[in-house]
């Protein structure tokens, strides 16, 4: 039984964990970059799932193929923490195919911008102004997504599932990860000048990500939830986490002398503001309809939510589509494929879904 606590003590009690988590993730991102991960990409859920899609040969972009230990660590860290805290629950059945499609479009948008919301925040902390433009798009996307929520948008309920349904995803990840370590089955970018070839040593990446996953599970940190809750409930809880990440990344970059403010010459970023904006708008809107950003989907999948596991596979499929059809951007600019038509298709999909799933329930 819990009694309400108010005032400063209540504020600290309710917010300390999300702030500590944010600071840790920000610091971890800088450390992972120092250990070999790409610049301003200590963590990036979208990029790392894209690398995994490449490792599994779902796409053949040779510069971005690596079975990233960070993804495994976050899922397993969240799983173990949820089990310890008795919050692990096999659950699913809430519009899985719709979530798969949402995952695909969120990933396509993220790879147009070059980063998930977490990397956007990390890029902002590195001084990348393009990421501020991405943030603008992200916020606009969330504001659009809040409208259907207020009108009763729903993907329907998830229900309790068998234990296996909640365990298959983390088990599969671990098996594939071990295979990536002990066999040559999977593709791996060797060129250290390419993003996929820039790799922090695997055990450090795994260990740090385990802690991040555990912290995120307990703090419920979510990039999309921060803006959404501030708008809908005047609840700034998750925004504190968001800001904490930026603060830690800025400090870390200043210490490492890697802070560089501006638009041009930013690591693994392009300067096409329209597409940075549109890409993240798609991510913001899609994430709100999913109920959480890509990082949050990983954590939920670790907690036993198979809808989120399906969503993660949607991300991976989206990454494959992005690279197979040249929709993904690079440091040179947006892709040569039909980027704009696909982004428009994504917005149309979100609009149709928002309208048809927003019937107010009595």
């Amino acid at each position, binding site marked *: 039984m*819990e009694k*309400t606590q108010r005032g400063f003590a209540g504020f600290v009690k309710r917010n300390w964990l999300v702030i500590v988590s944010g600071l840790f993730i920000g610091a971890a991102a800088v450390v992972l970059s120092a250990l070999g991960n790409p610049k301003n990409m200590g963590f990036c859920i979208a990029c790392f799932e894209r690398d995994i899609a490449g490792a599994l040969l779902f796409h053949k972009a040779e510069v971005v193929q690596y079975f990233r230990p960070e993804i495994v660590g976050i899922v397993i860290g969240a799983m173990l923490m949820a089990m310890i805290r008795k919050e692990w629950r096999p*659950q699913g059945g*809430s519009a899985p195919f719709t979530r798969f499609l949402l995952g695909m479009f969120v990933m396509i948008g993220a790879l147009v911008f070059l980063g998930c919301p977490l990397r956007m925040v990390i890029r902002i902390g590195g001084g990348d102004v393009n990421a501020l433009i991405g943030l603008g798009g992200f916020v606009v996307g969330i504001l659009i997504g809040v409208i259907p929520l207020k009108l009763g948008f729903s993907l329907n309920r998830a229900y309790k599932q068998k234990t296996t349904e909640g365990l298959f995803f983390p088990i599969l990840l671990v098996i594939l990860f071990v295979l990536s370590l002990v066999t040559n089955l999977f593709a791996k970018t060797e060129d250290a000048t390419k993003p996929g070839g820039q790799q922090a040593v695997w055990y450090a990446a795994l260990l740090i990500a385990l802690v991040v996953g555990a912290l995120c599970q307990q703090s419920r940190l979510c990039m999309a939830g921060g803006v959404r809750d501030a708008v809908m409930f005047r*609840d700034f*809880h998750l925004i504190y986490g968001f800001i904490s990440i930026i603060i830690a990344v800025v400090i870390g970059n200043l210490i490492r002398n890697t802070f560089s403010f501006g638009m041009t010459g930013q690591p693994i970023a392009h300067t096409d503001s329209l597409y940075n904006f549109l890409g993240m708008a798609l991510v913001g809107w899609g994430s709100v309809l999913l109920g959480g950003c890509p990082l949050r989907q990983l954590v939920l999948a670790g907690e036993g939510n198979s809808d989120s596991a399906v969503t993660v596979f949607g991300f991976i499929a989206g990454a494959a589509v992005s690279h197979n059809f040249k929709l993904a951007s690079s440091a040179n600019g947006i892709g040569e494929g039909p980027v704009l038509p696909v982004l428009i298709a994504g917005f149309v999909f979100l609009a149709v879904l928002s309208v048809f799933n927003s019937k107010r329930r009595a």
Partner: protein
Amino acid sequence: MMIDARGLSCPMPVLLVQREVKKNQTKTVEVLVDNMTAVGNITRFAVSQHYEVRTEETAGEYRMTLWK
């Protein structure tokens, strides 16, 4: 008033509570949720609206009572 918010994604549970409180000015609201994220969200919302909150766990589900 009992709201069954089990199995709903974020932020539906707290949204249903907000809707009920705004529409009917309900003094006492009972909510059934099945995850701690929803418990946290609803608790923060309740505090911001000057409600008292009590949460009881039974078999992996949380029965929350908000009153003022």
